[in-house]
């Protein structure tokens, strides 16, 4: 085994423990780290020549980043045989408790141990620090300290939920634990999480000086008889304690809904753990941690929100044999809301932008969008100016000369798009890559306007561009690898998360998200209580209810898209069950937020509320038999799932990772599921098929499962198992 913690005993008997995990740019907790720490603890306990220790990092990149999430797969549903006489949960507990126990051994070794923190300490990294008796941090405001595990559905499982409250008080600790918020060295000092903040080159000598001066310092405050919990005693009869948990639980419940495991586990671990001594407290923490880990939720979240996301951003879908093709100057056609946003993120990434529109006023307005947003973000004037200087508004196609990427975001009709495409080619020639930001029109058709369709691709942004993290790359029938590589390199430049899909009406995201809205309309058309539709939509983890989101998009737009699709498809067109609702709303000129009346009423200066006459108007009144909340949820969820599965079956999607990332980051599909494909795998494909069959029988063919799902169910297969086989 290689050495992960180097030891060096100085003349004062202070053992310097330097964590330096070989082969990693950043320290993470590996089995070697744990073994070396265990050995060091044994030496502290038994070697009289050792008076104390200082724990530090040998990496310039920081102190330690905690557990290696990619390496945590073993914890999640590992197929390893259980030790005899142990339940699955008991074995899991043993596994997750070992690190907790180890850090407890460190703080009870009997000798003073100081942490000298040179850089970031996150998650398990900070938990190592918290288990030391004295903590000195380098004086650098950029250093982040925190327990961000909640962001991927986990929680600190190495004493973090117990030591942080005992250091800073329960209420502030809950805030950091539940929000995954980071703190700076100065904040840590203020909260008693750090005892000193000194220049970086003095951390080790400061730590050593403390160890030397405090031979009896090897006792944590919470192990002393006189320990007082900051903020008052952790007992039910302390009103502060009671209020913290009544309020904290309610706020967490409101924010996380009924869906997330980790926040409630954190609350319970802190509530129960704070009331008992540390040895028991860390066992309670590990029990809740084991419960969270045993559920597929954390594994699904880690895979999509962390592993797949990073892989996508690092070019998982990029053709390997195409040379890097960074964009230097982009031709932005159309300076409307989307064009202006794309211009902004491009300029922010250091890319020159030629922002073209039909009038100079429109082009200038597009540039002003960036100025406005930068001012709102309080960007320093010189920095803002440098960004703005990169955007050149124009009406003249000749100004496009020199651009190495085109992005088109003009009005959504084929004729207008074809016109600007041809005018652009006249200046730049067909070898430049042309990306269309269409959200509805098939790419293969649009590519006909560009002489070399292999250089034509879809680059679909979401609104507002500067805030939405996803870009959907659409590969047309003739799109070539150079276009894909160019588009992905550009997405990497503007630091967004890409997915790659094949051409289809609505592509992947718009098509599947649309089903959520349509099912909401169907329910409404049947006379369902509108509040029930909206509340259930939000409660199942969608960012907004289906009716509210349709109001935002515009009911007139929904109507026009339906008409265009009807025209395009002719006899093949199948109208959705909510279509009459949209038609009725359009007849009444209720277009949504844009004219302050849609499914909701938008009083000036007040909060929107559901139009009281809605059900009467579109459904002739409330249905006598109302669906339960569970039935509404099932329809809103499975209508999306089946469409996602169809996209996979039809080849629109090539990987479940694209499907999950696109759903979560494109339309806000319940992130706690890890995405629709993770969710279907977790539910079990056979169960998904059974539910879809039942729903199809009751509500129509739109729920009918594709043959792919039936075949998978028959094989006992899952989407990610298939993906793993394909990758192997």
């Amino acid at each position, binding site marked *: 085994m290689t050495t992960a913690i180097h030891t060096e005993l100085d003349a004062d008997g202070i053992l310097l423990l330097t964590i330096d995990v070989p082969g990693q740019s950043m320290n993470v907790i590996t089995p070697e780290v744990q073994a070396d720490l265990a050995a060091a603890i044994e030496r502290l306990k038994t070697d009289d020549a050792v008076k104390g220790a200082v724990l530090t990092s040998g990496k310039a990149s920081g102190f330690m980043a905690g557990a290696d999430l990619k390496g945590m797969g073993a914890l999640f549903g590992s197929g390893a045989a259980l030790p005899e006489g142990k339940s699955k949960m008991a074995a899991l507990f043993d596994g997750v408790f070992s690190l907790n126990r180890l850090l407890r051994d460190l703080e009870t070794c009997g000798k003073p141990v100081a942490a000298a923190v040179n850089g970031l300490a996150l998650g398990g990294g900070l938990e190592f620090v918290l288990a030391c008796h004295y903590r000195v941090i380098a004086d650098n405001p950029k250093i982040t300290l925190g327990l961000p595990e909640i962001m991927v559905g986990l929680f600190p499982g190495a004493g973090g939920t117990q030591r942080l409250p005992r250091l800073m008080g329960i209420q502030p600790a809950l805030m950091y634990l539940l929000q995954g918020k980071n703190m700076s060295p100065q904040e840590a000092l203020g909260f008693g999480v750090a005892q000193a903040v000194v220049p970086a080159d003095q951390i080790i000598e400061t730590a050593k000086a403390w160890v030397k001066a405090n031979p009896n310092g090897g006792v944590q405050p919470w192990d002393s008889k006189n320990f007082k919990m900051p903020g008052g005693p952790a007992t*039910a*009869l302390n*009103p502060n*304690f*009671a209020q913290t*948990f*009544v*309020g*904290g*639980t*309610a*706020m*967490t*419940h*409101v924010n996380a*809904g*009924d869906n997330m495991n980790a926040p*409630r586990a954190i*609350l*319970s671990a802190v*509530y129960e753990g704070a009331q008992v001594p540390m040895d028991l407290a860390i066992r309670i923490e590990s029990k809740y941690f084991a419960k969270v880990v045993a559920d597929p939720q954390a594994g699904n979240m880690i895979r999509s929100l962390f592993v797949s996301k990073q892989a996508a951003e690092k070019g998982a879908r990029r053709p390997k044999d195409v040379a890097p093709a960074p964009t230097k100057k982009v031709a932005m056609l159309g300076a409307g809301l989307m064009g202006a946003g794309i211009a902004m993120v491009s300029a922010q990434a250091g890319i020159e932008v030629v922002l073209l529109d039909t009038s100079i006023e429109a082009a200038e307005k597009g540039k002003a969008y960036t100025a406005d947003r930068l001012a709102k973000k309080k960007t320093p004037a010189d920095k803002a100016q440098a960004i703005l200087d990169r955007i050149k508004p124009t009406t003249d196609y000749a100004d496009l000369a020199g651009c190495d990427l085109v992005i088109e975001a003009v009005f959504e009709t084929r004729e207008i798009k074809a016109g600007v495409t041809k005018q652009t080619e006249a200046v730049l020639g067909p070898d430049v890559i042309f990306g269309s930001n269409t959200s509805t029109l098939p790419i293969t058709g649009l590519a006909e306007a560009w002489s070399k369709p292999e250089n034509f691709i879809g680059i679909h942004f979401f609104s507002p561009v500067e805030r939405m993290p996803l870009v959907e790359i659409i590969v047309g029938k003739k799109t070539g690898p150079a276009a894909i590589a160019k588009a992905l390199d550009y997405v990497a430049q503007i630091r967004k998360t890409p997915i790659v899909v094949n051409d289809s009406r609505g592509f992947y995201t718009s098509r599947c998200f649309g089903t959520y809205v349509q099912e909401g309309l169907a329910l409404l058309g049947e006379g369902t*209580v*509108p*509040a*029930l539709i*909206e*509340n*259930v939509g939000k*409660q199942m983890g969608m960012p907004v209810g289906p009716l509210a989101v349709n109001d935002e998009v515009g009911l007139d737009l929904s109507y026009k898209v339906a008409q265009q699709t009807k025209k395009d498809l002719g006899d093949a067109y199948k109208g959705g069950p909510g279509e009459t609702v949209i038609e009725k709303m359009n007849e009444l000129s209720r277009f949504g937020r844009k004219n302050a009346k849609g499914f909701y009423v938008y009083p000036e200066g007040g909060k929107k*509320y*559901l139009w009281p006459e809605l059900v009467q108007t579109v459904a002739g009144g409330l249905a006598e038999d*109302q669906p339960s*909340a569970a039935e*509404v949820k099932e329809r809103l969820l499975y209508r999306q799932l089946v469409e996602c599965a169809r996209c996979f079956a039809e080849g629109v999607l090539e990987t479940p990772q694209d499907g999950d990332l696109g759903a979560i980051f494109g339309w806000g599909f319940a992130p706690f599921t890890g995405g629709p494909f993770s969710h279907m795998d977790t539910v079990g494909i056979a169960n998904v098929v059974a539910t879809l069959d039942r729903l199809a029988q009751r509500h129509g063919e739109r729920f009918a499962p594709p043959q792919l799902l039936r075949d998978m169910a028959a094989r006992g297969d899952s989407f990610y198992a298939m993906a793993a086989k394909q990758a192997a």
Partner: protein
Amino acid sequence: MTEAYIYDAVRTPRGKGKKDGKLHEITPIQLATQVLQAVRDRTGIDTADVDDVVLGCVSPVGEQGSDIARVAVLNADYAETTAGVQINRFCASGLEATNMAAAKVMTGEAMFAIGGGVESMSRVPMGSDGAAWAMDPAVAYKTYFAPQGIGADLIATKYGFSRNDVDAYAMESQARAARAWAEGRFKKSIVPVKDVIGEVVLAHDEHMRPGTDMQSLGSLAPAFQAIGEAMPGFDAIALMRYPEVEKINHVHHGGNSSGIVDGASAILIGNKEMGEKYGLKPRARIRAMASIGSEPMIMLTGPEFVAQKVLQRAGMTKDDIDLFELNEAFASVVLRYMQALNIPHDRINVNGGAIAMGHPLGATGAMILGTVLDELERTGKGTAMVNLCVGAGMGTGTIIERV
């Protein structure tokens, strides 16, 4: 089964449950002691015949802790053979105590038993005893815990009671209570509270605001809007349980909710032989008793269900009941009960209720039982049903019948 009869019913006046309330200087053990002494002195019974004293108390900690019923027995100089037990069924504790006392008589466990309750809300604030229900994150999550004011506003929203409706109800409660006091309708039961030198500190209900009108009520800000809509945002939790509701209409405030007050009550229940022994005339028979559980988040719709259950136990319908008494925890609770059971306003809470006079949590149930019994006697009517809504979705009820 032995019949259980009510032989006497007393209550203290209710003092404002604040530091400037008249009863703030009186300890809760004194409140309980004085009602027990009153029962003994008014009936002339030998307390050795009282087998048990059951007292409701909702915050049984601090000076209300450690079985205040037994300690009150000792402090009131009852026979030391009399037992005492403190019970907690939240807001219905006083009625539950009476039901338990009656059950002891019915089963033959007791010859005489006293049911009642005590709460000094000014000295032991509500919530002093903690609660796994509200505080333990796993439990609060599971039960969709929200304070009962949110449930009261949810009832108003769900069953269509406007701010105007609840305020109008509150105004009527004040008017009825004022009339009842003016006409001396409570005098049979009221035991003035005395201080350590024997002087009366309070002889009438202190919380009432007789001049209350719609305008004065209309000026009060909703009490639960901030915790519902802002921090910590309990409305969203309510909507998880009731997703068919778009938005909670916050209509309740201090003027249309029960008042926070101090007070105590006691009801002497015994079998027929005890009445004969002391020459006491039974005032009423306990005809049926019940408690139920229902959905805990909305919390306060239990009265409707317990009313149905207790009527069924009695073999009666609501038309067999002359007078209804439902604790006025919140105006919407009473309005919903009237709506659900189709009860006219002139047959329920005819002498006002807790909105006007206050709700000393542990004591109220026995107080309103005494109040409705006095009213049956005053008007020559025969039957009454008493109900209270109870925390965590429960309900408790009792039907009495004059003999």
